[in-house]
């Protein structure tokens, strides 16, 4: 799986609690991404990073924040989880060298907010 580890793989949490998901890569790729996958919506970009401490918002960033203090780690935080954030979250990495390098995805974190 291209050296990408997501943790935890499953999590159940209560509405209003903070949650942090972790993505760790061993490929030394510059670009890292967080997506959420929901039935009928496909893959939607939450946030992405193009380097240490360099991040930007994606299509569905409201209610989420990210941090990247090291090349290998990209954290996604839900400050106060809501039921609408129940989803499967995927981290992806890319070297984005040359034109259109592919994304490599982790195996996802299934988050349930009750």
């Amino acid at each position, binding site marked *: 799986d291209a050296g990408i580890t997501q943790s935890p793989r499953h999590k159940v949490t209560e509405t209003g609690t903070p949650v942090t998901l972790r993505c760790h890569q061993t490929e030394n790729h510059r670009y890292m*991404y967080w997506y959420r996958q929901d039935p009928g919506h496909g893959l939607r970009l939450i946030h992405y990073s*193009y380097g240490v401490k360099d991040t930007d918002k994606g299509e569905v960033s409201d209610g989420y924040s990210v941090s990247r203090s090291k090349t290998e780690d990209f954290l996604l935080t839900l400050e106060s989880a809501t039921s609408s954030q129940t989803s499967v979250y995927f981290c992806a990495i890319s070297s984005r060298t040359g034109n259109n390098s592919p994304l*490599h995805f982790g195996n996802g974190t299934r988050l349930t907010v009750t």
Partner: protein
Amino acid sequence: QQQVKQSPQSLIVQKGGIPIINCAYENTAFDYFPWYQQFPGKGPALLIAIRPDVSEKKEGRFTISFNKSAKQFSLHIMDSQPGDSATYFCGGDSGGGADGLTFGKGTHLIIQP
């Protein structure tokens, strides 16, 4: 604004048949069109990709057909097998930045034995 429209949402085909998944795009800045394959419990993985300067690309049993004037492209799976059952995503990439890739909403494909 949905920049890549994918259809059908789900598809059931008998083994040996040729499932076809279609995508249409709006952004003429896209210059790379990948297809990703996702098995249950796994992340998507790049299956095959095409650039708009060619009309067709084959890799094994998978073929992309590309129609630049119509802004449409499709994935064909020859001699489909139950092991091809997965969710397939098409995408368009403008290469303009880290967020240049846009995905379609996915097609859940089932190949019946």
